[in-house]
């Protein structure tokens, strides 16, 4: 089966510092890929390159066979993206913001209404629709970010720490939502939370110092850990890498 996301030899240097180093991996439809790594490992930079926000120093990002550098608009149509920190237009109400995103995504008529209702329902935003975004709590803001990411029913979801700032119930709801839609999409989630990898990911990718150091299923990873715990293996792998660097 052809990969829906194909990353090959992706690198990014900032002022001579290598942040992402020759990263290659594929993601298939139906996979939920957990992107793990310590702070500064290059997770967000990789996501910014996959979504076309940053130009890679070297390497290629293919979205359903389309090179992000050559066909950015067509490739971005297939993506739903929640950037780190869920940046939003604070001066707009939730409803205005979601309508704006729907217009930019060129959703029209009944389909637009249907998708807006779906996104609002799944992220439980109905009570704050007419509130301006800057008056919302961190958890609600994150949910607005999620709503805009799933609004156009994208084939690919790239979510940078989607549950950051949510309470345990809200985390559970987001995980449930992702589990519901996962079968027909390719999802990449970056997270610090290893429990999240266990809960929703079908595959985990650990990076440190910009390099890929492990690519496996959460179960297989756990079996490699002497204690049977993912966080012990994560600490062992990433601290080895940091020591070597």
């Amino acid at each position, binding site marked *: 089966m052809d990969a829906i996301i194909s990353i090959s030899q992706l690198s990014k240097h*900032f002022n001579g510092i290598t942040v992402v180093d020759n990263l290659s991996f594929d993601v298939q439809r139906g996979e939920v890929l957990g992107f793990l790594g310590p702070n500064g490992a290059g997770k967000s930079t990789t996501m910014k390159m996959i979504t*076309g926000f940053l130009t890679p120093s070297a390497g290629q990002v293919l979205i359903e066979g389309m090179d992000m550098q050559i066909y950015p608009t067509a490739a*971005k149509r297939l993506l739903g993206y929640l950037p780190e920190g869920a940046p939003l237009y604070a*001066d707009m109400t939730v409803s205005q913001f979601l309508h*704006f995103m729907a217009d*930019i*995504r060129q959703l029209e008529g009944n389909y637009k209404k249907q998708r807006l209702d779906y996104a609002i329902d799944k992220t439980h935003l109905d009570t704050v629709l007419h509130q301006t975004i800057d008056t919302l709590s961190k958890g609600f803001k994150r949910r607005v970010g999620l709503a805009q990411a799933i609004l156009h029913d994208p084939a690919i979801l790239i979510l940078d720490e989607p549950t950051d700032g949510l309470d345990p119930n809200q985390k559970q709801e987001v995980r449930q939502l992702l589990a519901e839609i996962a079968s027909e999409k390719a999802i990449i989630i970056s997270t610090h939370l290893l429990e999240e990898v266990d809960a929703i990911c079908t595959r985990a990718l650990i990076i440190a110092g910009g390099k890929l150091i492990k690519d496996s299923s959460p179960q297989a990873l756990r079996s490699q850990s002497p204690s049977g715990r993912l966080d012990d293996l994560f600490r062992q792998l990433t601290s080895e890498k940091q020591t070597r660097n």
Partner: protein
Amino acid sequence: MNIIFSLTKRELVNYFTTPIAYVFIVVFLLLSQAFTFYLGHFFGRNEADLMAFFSFIPWLYVVFIPAITMQSFAQEHKMGTTELLLTLPIATYQVVIAKFIAAWVVSIVALLLTIPLWITVNYLGDPDNGVILAGYMGCLFVSGGFAAVGICLSSLTSNQVIAFVSSVLVCLLFLLCGLPLVLDIFQGFAPLWLLDTISQFSFLTHFASLSKGLLDSRTLVYFVTFIGFWLYANTVILEYKKNAG
């Protein structure tokens, strides 16, 4: 086109749901009328024209247009929404054009609110309305040119104060470059053709001919090229930032 319309609408929501546009419009109207009547001696001149009004407009625009445009990209950079915007399936130039149109619209609304002055002149005397119309067109061109400069410089920084001050300086430079104050600096060593070229860049020279009712095709070409150049430079800067992060 729909995308540019949606983006422009969002920008206008930002201007008109926050006090920015209202403060701009009210202060602009107050100052332009105060200058016209007190410094320009509107009644004392005893002539049925709007020269007393038009002569101050470019000077007011030097400060007021950068005040509108300073937040256009700088605020997006600061809030992190540039990432949201530039990972949508839209071309960078569409974002630039939308921001330009929105800023220009705010200045046009302010200008339209000065029309009672035009009506007053017609009530009191028998002015040449063609000349006045040309003057208003000159105001549109100058505000468009300054808006293009301001938006471009705002894309270079996340600090609105820097965006404002640098835009005021560049706008002032283009306003003054036809005056002896600037030309005298080059007088000693520069050849005549260079002096001519520099003075051709002056907004004041082009605006003066328009406000006298002389609609020259060179003036039109100058302003259109000027605006096009700055919008193009703006797009290039945003594309370049994708490399630098």
